[in-house]
């Protein structure tokens, strides 16, 4: 049996590598445009749906359309919802970003609902790059990282082609150790 003394110094808990000190890399600015465009499209549809009762009430001239006199309720709700969503997009987008350390990757997102998720490279089972038709036009990629059990899956959306490839290559190299 080996009886040499083992060094066992007291732990300074502030000494462990700190995640808060890393710098986050932003995702592509083009992705913000894409998200805002999506926001606009959805809002247009919803607005149309909310305005219809008003139009029917004002120009329809039917007696039985009395229900639609409360047309401003859905419209008001919709406007509040649109504003919140817009704020989330506008203030949340600059907060989107990822940070790569030697052994793990961290993704930060959201303004109203914020989350910072760290996934160790060693636990990544496989990765996937995906592009929709619009993001292909814009040259954007979404990188999905899969972990066992699926609860720690990470989706980093809106990466430029080069940075996506670089990130993926890095992850492949790190996970294959």
């Amino acid at each position, binding site marked *: 049996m080996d009886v040499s003394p083992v060094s066992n110094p007291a*732990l300074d*808990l*502030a000494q*462990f*590598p*700190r*995640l*808060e000190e890393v710098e986050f890399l932003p995702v592509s600015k083009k992705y913000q445009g894409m998200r805002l465009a999506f926001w606009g499209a959805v809002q247009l549809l919803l607005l149309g749906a909310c305005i219809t009762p008003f139009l029917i009430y004002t120009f329809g001239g039917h007696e039985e359309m009395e229900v639609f006199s409360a047309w401003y309720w859905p419209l008001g709700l919709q406007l509040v919802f649109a504003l919140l969503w817009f704020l989330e997009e506008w203030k949340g987008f600059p907060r989107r970003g990822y940070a790569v350390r030697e*052994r*793990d990757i961290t993704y930060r997102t959201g*303004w*109203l*609902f*914020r*989350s*910072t*998720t*760290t*996934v*160790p490279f*060693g*636990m990544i089972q496989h990765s996937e790059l995906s592009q929709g038709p619009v993001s292909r036009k814009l040259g954007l990629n979404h990188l999905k990282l899969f*972990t*066992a*059990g*699926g*609860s*720690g899956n*990470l989706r980093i959306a809106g990466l430029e082609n080069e940075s996506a490839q670089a990130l993926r290559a890095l992850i492949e190299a790190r996970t294959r*150790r």
Partner: protein
Amino acid sequence: MSVDFDVPKRQHPLGVFIIGAKFTWNLVRSFWPIFIGATLGEMEWYYFLAIPVVLLFTGAFALVYYLRFYFYISSDALIVERGIFQRERLQIPFDRIQAVQLFQGPVQQIFGLTGVRVDTAGSSGSELELVAVRKSEARVLQQFLSSKMTSGTAPESDVEMGEDAAPLEQQSKPLVSLGTAGLIKVGLSQNHFKNAFLGLALFMSLFQGAEEQVSDWLNGVPAVLLSVVGLTSVLLFIPGLVIMGIFGVLTSLGSVFLRYWRFNSTLGQDGLKVQMGLLRRNTFDVPFDKIHLTEWRSNWIRRLLGYETVRIRQAQAEGSGGLRVFIPAMEPVHREAMETALYPDLLDQKVLFDVTPARRLRWILLAAASVPSLLLLAVPSGLHFAVAAAWLAFVFWTTGRRYRSYRLRVCTNSIVLEKGWFWQNRTVLKMAQLQGVEWKRNALLERRKIGHLVFHTAAGERTFSYLQRDQAAQIRDFALNQLHAAEQRASTEPLSSPVDQAQ
């Protein structure tokens, strides 16, 4: 080894009957509305001809399925070839196997056969079943696979030594085993209220996993809402409550006897072995390093009797069934034995972080729990006022206790999450097995520097809510550090392991 698994082989011939029975059961399960529909109309005698015809067809299918089903073991995987028209070749590498389970349903018990179920961590088609294998063969297969999956990274010579598993058997320590008295004890300490619901659900729809849905639903209701659900259901069901109670106790006892009959568990050198069941007898073999979470639960009665229930969770995709192993009646001795095997650092009592949630949680719990009394006051009357006041006093008292029960402790390798005062729940996970750590909060909480720390494991996520940002950051950094340290150790160990040096 007396049994040879190297060449493709069929299952035991009697398996045809078991496969046939399974096919028929599946058929009945998926078409029972049609059968019921058919009986509603006018019945003609020739309708019944359909029964032998269908049976004949399923029998023929079962025979062909049996004849075309092969399994064998290659150098690094268990391989199954199956399928009638569309052939399928399943290859399960040993290191992907999470657990090997032997089961004997009523049919297998009659024929003296055993089914073998192999669980993997995949999300789809996550398990593989052989339904009819001779008992001796199954045991050899289980031991062989167990030795392979725990030493997946070990050199080849090491594995061959593991094949005669006699020395392993000798080293195993007995854990919980239950006789009739033990079963009654466990049965009486179940959550009868929940079991009554489960029993009802089971009674009403014998089909398609309704039990699991109700159970998931009850577990999924946020803690803050449970009291609301509880009170409203009490108000609704007071007359039916007695009947429900009796029904619940009977269901509890019945299900416990069915599930845990002749329960026996042992801690082996590198895995847990559990046997249980009356109609369907199960034998589980779970290696320690494939256990991703343990959940320890107790209620007031169980604490009075001095034991808790442990639930063992393995890697599984969200929502998929996966393997569920419960060990009821874990006394302190058993708990210590299990923690020695799984989480030795917990016994050192060296707690690096001991964190309680922010005060805000207390107000949230209180606010949520007082909702029923506010509802009562919506229709003011003397009685309502009295009931509301009583409820508020009760809630005020319990909320303090509930709030104080939330606790997060971090030892050198493990994280312990505790919650609950009446129903206590303690979840233990290893930092080395974490799949990710998340820090989550909304904009309002962010201003107060409070948030939720989410631990993602292969067996699902576990959250500790409302803790201070600084503490959370420290814990997260420490957990990630321990995870990386374990990874580093694992990647360097094979080079300097004592086994290699000895050879």
